[in-house]
């Protein structure tokens, strides 16, 4: 629990130094980035909205990372989820019915799942690095979305803007409270945390996943099938990323348009590590990272601090977390003439 907190503190200190170097007040930046989103009720709602997809994706990634399988293409699976779920909404445009939303969610999850199956199968059947294939598919998903919203799915009345029609009401996740913006996606994220928690704590499958990451040879001897675990963790993380994608499209954006991914699939990697690869940790870290992202949005306007600063900070934070994990595991010894 202490390690990620310390890592966060160190990253914030270094970040403050960079802000000072850019000629801005670090204290003001601290207020805008961290305090304001936490104190303003409107901003807090935005934080939870941002934390929803982050939690869903990160929970999925936990399964991969715990098993030392490196799915770094969650961004692509997120986009595919949005595309498939959004596709249902576009095809059902103008219709009403309680079936539309569930169909969208299922289509989104299946889309992400199918997209994640590609690197998984390439790895288990052909021994191809899942790192490279899952990442290459992010660029492909990005271009597919671009093609769809400029081509077949473009809103005919949209003044040629690259975007789909606005979804009708029965394809939009409705607010949970009157006048608020929080939608049922938040409940899905909470459910994912709970289910993952139980899976890792109470089931053989959760144990097999962790074991095959921590001690692959031992896991083999115990009879856990390596290929099956690879495919399963990829399918789980793909389905959750896809679900996050359709939740984002249906609950936040209300249509398909380029760039709805916002790099959340990559940010979720940081969320997973900041949460020390535990389900509850992922939920908490998703909120921390969401605070920073919402802070970054207002810092762009009020302090004219570019979003690249936030990107830089995210990388820095991940580095600090990784060093923290190492210091936890090993004792650092400084010796002269060591190897």
């Amino acid at each position: 629990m202490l390690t990620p907190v310390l890592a966060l503190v160190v990253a914030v200190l270094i970040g403050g130094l960079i802000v000072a170097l850019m000629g801005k007040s670090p204290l003001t930046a601290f207020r805008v980035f961290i305090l304001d989103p936490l104190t303003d009720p409107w901003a807090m709602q935005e934080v939870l909205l941002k934390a929803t997809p982050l939690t869903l994706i990160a929970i999925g990634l936990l399964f991969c990372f715990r098993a030392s399988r490196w799915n770094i293409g969650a961004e692509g699976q997120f986009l595919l989820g949005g595309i498939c779920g959004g596709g249902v909404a576009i095809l059902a445009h103008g219709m009403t019915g309680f079936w539309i939303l569930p169909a969208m969610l299922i289509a989104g999850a299946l889309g992400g799942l199918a997209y994640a199956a590609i690197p998984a199968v390439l790895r288990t059947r052909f021994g191809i690095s899942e790192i490279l294939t899952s990442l290459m598919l992010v660029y492909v998903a990005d271009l597919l979305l671009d093609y769809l919203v400029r081509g077949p799915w473009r809103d005919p009345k949209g003044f040629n803007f690259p975007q789909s029609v606005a979804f009708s009401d029965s394809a939009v996740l409705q607010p949970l409270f009157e006048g608020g913006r929080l939608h049922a996606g938040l409940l899905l994220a909470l459910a994912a945390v709970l289910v993952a928690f139980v899976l890792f704590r109470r089931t053989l499958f959760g144990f097999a996943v962790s074991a095959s990451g921590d001690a692959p040879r031992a896991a083999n001897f115990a009879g856990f099938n390596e290929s099956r675990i690879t495919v399963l963790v990829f399918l789980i993380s793909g389905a959750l990323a896809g679900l996050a994608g359709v939740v984002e499209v249906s609950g936040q954006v209300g249509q398909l348009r380029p760039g709805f991914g916002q790099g959340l699939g990559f940010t979720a990697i940081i969320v997973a590590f900041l949460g020390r690869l535990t389900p509850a940790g992922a939920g908490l870290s998703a909120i921390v990272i969401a605070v920073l992202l919402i802070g970054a949005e207002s810092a762009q306007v009020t302090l004219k601090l570019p979003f690249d600063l936030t990107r830089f900070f995210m990388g820095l934070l991940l580095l600090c977390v990784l060093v923290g994990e190492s210091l936890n595991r090993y004792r650092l010894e400084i010796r002269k003439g060591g190897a």
Partner: protein
Amino acid sequence: MDMLPLILATIFTAATPLLIAALGEHVVERAGVLNLGVEGMMIVGAATGFAAAVLSDSSVFGLLAGALAGMALSAVFGVLVIFFATNQVATGLALTILGLGLAGLIGQNFVGQPRGAIAAIEIPLLKDIPVLGKAIFTGDPVFYLSLVLVALVAFGLNRTRIGLLLRAVGENHTSAHSLGLPVRRLRFWAILFGGLMAGLAGAYLSLIYTRFWSPGMSAGRGWIALALVVFAAGHVWRLVLGAYLFGGITVAQLHAQAGAIALPSQLLSALPYLMTIAALLVLSLSGRKGGGAAGSLGQPFVPER
């Protein structure tokens, strides 16, 4: 037939950054380290190189600055994975995320500024060879440098003592350590070399290939370079082949987009990424499953626990 040498020359220009970055990563992976930060080091090299070239009004200084920026970033990676034994995959990924942000910060005041071409070097006599002469022997200085680097890396890894030690460390770090080899120091040097190359490749992109800076301009080239290293399966000459093949695909899809081909432009843009996967698949089907990777690739080394 005046088009052919021109097209060949653009293929070489498109391939050179891939080749340089892949050469660097090849050495890193021979030493048993997987640095997934190539994309990040490359884009920081591109931004720093461009900014330095504009400020000093010297493209040569820009290339140097870009290379050094890449190396500085790789030093961070090196310290973390070598001395703190952090997870290499996650650390490399963090480096890429950090690099993309850092490059945006460095380059923010230079977006859209044009930059003149760097003078080509024409080699007398050789450049008069039909077709190939004009394509190969009127290139930019870094193109020639990349060929020299290919020879140096191939010779260095296979024919020198330091290359042998580096490969020994990569193949089995525990054995190398028990033989008294300075595993961590050798790996650190290899990582720095990889950063230098990735930075140079990035500076080549912004100063010679496109001649302007735009955010995110590396567009996955660092990742393609990583794939090339897998594709090369330990052979430097296959690195060259792979890089020029990809240069060819890039140029072909650009020409197809400019011409009237009835395919969506996005599909053509996706070709380099799809071809990367296809190339890895072909490699695997030809029965060289993971054959080329160094024995202890990606494993953290912690002496005497």
